């Protein structure tokens, strides 16, 4: 499974939706993921990809990790994964 599909699967499970219901341009708010759902999603992403996500729940916009849309999260995970490989 691609990184994109895996991230979508994690987000869909958190939102209690089917992966096919998730659009890349959706924001987390659009699909009903609240702040607790967000930290759980990030935990699942870290566990799945064996990466450490720079995310501070006190100030979600502060870190490098862009959570403004599903596409942004996928891109951020791809970036972290490629840095890890380098």
């Amino acid at each position, binding site marked *: 499974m691609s990184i994109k599909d895996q991230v979508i699967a994690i987000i869909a*499970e958190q939102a*209690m939706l089917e992966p096919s219901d998730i659009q890349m341009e959706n924001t987390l708010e659009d699909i009903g993921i609240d702040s*607790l*759902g967000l*930290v*759980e999603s*990030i*935990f699942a992403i*870290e*566990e799945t990809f064996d990466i*450490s996500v720079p995310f501070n729940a006190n100030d979600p916009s502060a870190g490098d990790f862009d959570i403004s849309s599903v596409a942004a999260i996928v891109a951020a995970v791809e970036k972290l994964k490629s840095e890890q490989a380098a």
Partner: protein
Amino acid sequence: MGRVVITGAGTINPLGSDMPSTLLAMQEGRCGIGPLEIEDVDRLSIQIGGQIKGYDEAAHFNRQQIALYDRFTQFALLAAREAIGQSGLSFSGELADQSGVIFGTSGGGLNTQDENYRAVYEAGKNRVHPFIVPRLMNNAATSHVSIEWNLRGPTFTVATACASSNHAMGQAFNMVRSGMAKVMVTGGSEAMLCFGGIKAWEGLRVMSRDACRPFSATRNGMVQGEGAAVFVFEDYEHARARGAEILCEVAGFAMSSDACDIVTPSKQGAARAIGGALKDAKISKDSVGYINAHGTGTAANDKTECAAVADVFGAHADRLMISSTKSMHGHLIGGTGAVELIACIMALRDGIIAPTIGYEEADPECALDVVPNVAREAQVEVALSNAFAFGGMNAVIALRRH
């Protein structure tokens, strides 16, 4: 001061997953203690407990709820659903603001702590699930019940070891009696049967390897249990006005501190709490028909408790019945007083006295009518429930037949 009645009761414990099955088990003198089924049990020297077997959390809660609910929270929510369901109450507007939750627990989310210490220390993981703190905190059960039922008044958790539930219910009683609250959802919950939870108790050398036999000369220690019981304490006039079914009246409560030793019980401290509850309820000693004992099955507790009862009641001590249902469900630590209150309600309402099972041989230092092995029919006007905790904290509740 107002009067306080119980209009709902619910439970899940080693004897049953609801009130009817628990009452039946207590009447039959059934034992809910057996081999523990937990991780690393082979490294424990104590391998028995009052464990709730065949429990499937997914049958009651969805994945997201389970991420937030430790086992002790799940037990409290299930017991609260039964209790509030029976009461027929729903909470909105002013009633919601005047109603709250007080539960006792000692270990709180101990399974969550145990699992995650295991993950970081033993498995060497460097990351834990984000909800460990809200899952393990001692007030989690209280908070989730308040959230599920919209109870917006006085709400907190009491942790006084083995007296936690009695202290919690005593507070709830006084809040309703004083007019501070109309309805209080109260009781206690405990889920301590994990490797760390048992291992710590092993260290004290007070645990039995085979059975809990309170008051029997052959007793050799306590056995841990798990579970929850929840009650709806309601202002009597409020309950009467809505035609609620009343299970019994909460008549009095007292607490005391031994101010003596951190683990050894004190006869004087226990006697002051028992006598205090009678005084608070304005009940004469002679009207007490049944005492649900703290009765842990340790050498120290049982003889001290019997001496305290003899001191308070004098000649009447030989006429009342005193049993320890811990022989059946084990010691639920912070939840124990709540589950034991069920036996008091059964005595008052159904006229059935739960037995002390596992009783083999009389002990001259426990020479009271301990209702050995077989339940008994008897009409009881007043019942007491004793709880005496490590730390020297004693809490006794008096219930009256309605």
